[in-house]
């Protein structure tokens, strides 16, 4: 009889709070469709690990084994990068090189948040991991957190994925606060199409891997896997591998990554002041990213003859294609003839590259301390 009561007797208010958080994530995934492929397994993982004496976690629990095999070893984020690379098309970015700069400018939130977190008393490794939420890139956040602050992995992952899904809510007010209606209405005509040859599309990922790897060897796993996935797609001779990376690999690793991350959300690890601070700073990172991109675009406009719609700057984050879609919609709301979707996509792809470079740079710099 005692064995049947053990679960009830082990329950505390903390478990109920975590059940509530798990249900909230599942609700957001199913009812609101906010990043459902991630929030659903994360939410369910949170339920599994918070049932007292759960056999899913613990020394022999399957989710703990998956955690050691895929998260501690950084295998899952690296495999996700192969999948993301196979889905990336760098052509819009190569056709309009100015857009690439937004991939750097919109990483401003990372550095602003690192400073902010340090002010709040986090050590430099924790602060750097918190700042990386501003990369708006789940796998990069997980990769950096695993290396620098594994104890914060659960809140960092939840913050990164939650705020990525909230881009349509976070970005518009920041953009509106920093731009005038006139600026938001700037028309950006589609430029004459510059064809990108197959040779360029093949050589670009190889060259980027070599350059980024030599500059920051610690970033090779990040950049290299992304570019490997992209090469699989662009070379055109391994269609099966390309499809497998984009579908089977992406789906399987996302599923395992999500439920494993969710299973790290134990009440003991999650319910503390640090988690609340991490969640708060995550939103600061996204706000500063958006502000950095928009203000950089406004700065560029001082020197450019053909003005850029400053909203494009906000697309320099990695949340693809959500950010591009949000900004394109905002541009159309200001002016019905303002189709900036192609420019927005170019900046958004640059953001994907930029976030990974930022992750590698932060790792390389912090490793030096």
């Amino acid at each position, binding site marked *: 009889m005692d064995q049947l009561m053990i679960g009830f007797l082990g329950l505390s208010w903390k478990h109920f709070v975590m059940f509530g958080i798990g249900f909230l994530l599942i609700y957001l995934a199913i009812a609101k469709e906010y990043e459902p492929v991630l929030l659903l397994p994360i939410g369910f993982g949170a339920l599994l690990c918070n049932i007292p004496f759960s056999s899913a976690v613990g020394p022999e629990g399957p989710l703990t084994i998956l955690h050691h095999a895929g998260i501690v070893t950084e295998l899952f984020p690296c495999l996700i990068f192969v999948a993301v690379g196979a889905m990336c098309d*760098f052509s819009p*970015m*190569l056709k309009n*090189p100015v857009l*690439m*700069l937004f*991939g*750097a*400018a919109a*990483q*401003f939130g*990372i*550095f*602003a948040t*690192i*400073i902010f*977190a*340090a*002010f709040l*008393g*986090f*050590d*430099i490794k924790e*602060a*750097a991991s918190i*700042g990386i939420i501003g990369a708006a890139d789940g796998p990069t956040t997980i990769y950096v957190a695993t290396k620098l602050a594994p104890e914060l992995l659960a809140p960092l992952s939840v913050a990164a994925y939650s705020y990525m899904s909230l881009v349509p809510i976070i970005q518009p007010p920041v953009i509106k606060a920093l731009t005038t209606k006139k600026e938001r209405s700037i028309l950006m005509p589609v430029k004459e199409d*510059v*064809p*990108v*040859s197959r*040779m*360029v599309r093949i*050589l*670009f990922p190889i*060259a*980027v891997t070599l*350059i*980024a790897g030599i*500059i920051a060897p610690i970033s090779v796993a990040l950049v290299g896997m992304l570019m490997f996935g992209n090469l699989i797609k662009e070379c055109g001779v391994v269609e099966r591998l390309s499809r497998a990376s984009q579908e089977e690999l992406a789906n399987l690793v996302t599923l395992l990554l999500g439920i494993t991350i969710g299973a790290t959300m134990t009440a003991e690890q999650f319910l503390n002041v640090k988690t609340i601070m991490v969640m708060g700073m995550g939103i600061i990172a996204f706000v500063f990213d958006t502000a950095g991109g928009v203000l950089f675009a406004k700065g560029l406009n001082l020197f450019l003859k053909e003005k850029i719609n400053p909203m494009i700057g906000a697309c320099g984050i990695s949340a693809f294609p959500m950010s591009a879609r949000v900004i394109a919609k905002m541009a159309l709301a200001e002016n019905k003839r303002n189709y900036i979707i192609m420019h927005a996509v170019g900046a958004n792809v*640059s953001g994907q*590259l*930029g976030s990974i*470079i*930022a992750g590698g*740079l*932060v790792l390389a*710099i*912090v490793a030096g*301390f």
Partner: protein
Amino acid sequence: MLLASSFFSNEFKEVSSVNPTVIEALNVAAIGLPAMFGVIILFVALGQALLKLFPEKSNSAK
């Protein structure tokens, strides 16, 4: 980048009340942001060089 980094280190070392972690964080930003732009500009140049070196062959010559 090194100059920027040493600037922040020296400036803040003089103010004893500043948390050393904040100085490290400022260093990360002082090195990281310019490095970020540097790497991206390098990739812009790389992309443009590749486009020039390997242009798409036109299909118009039939």
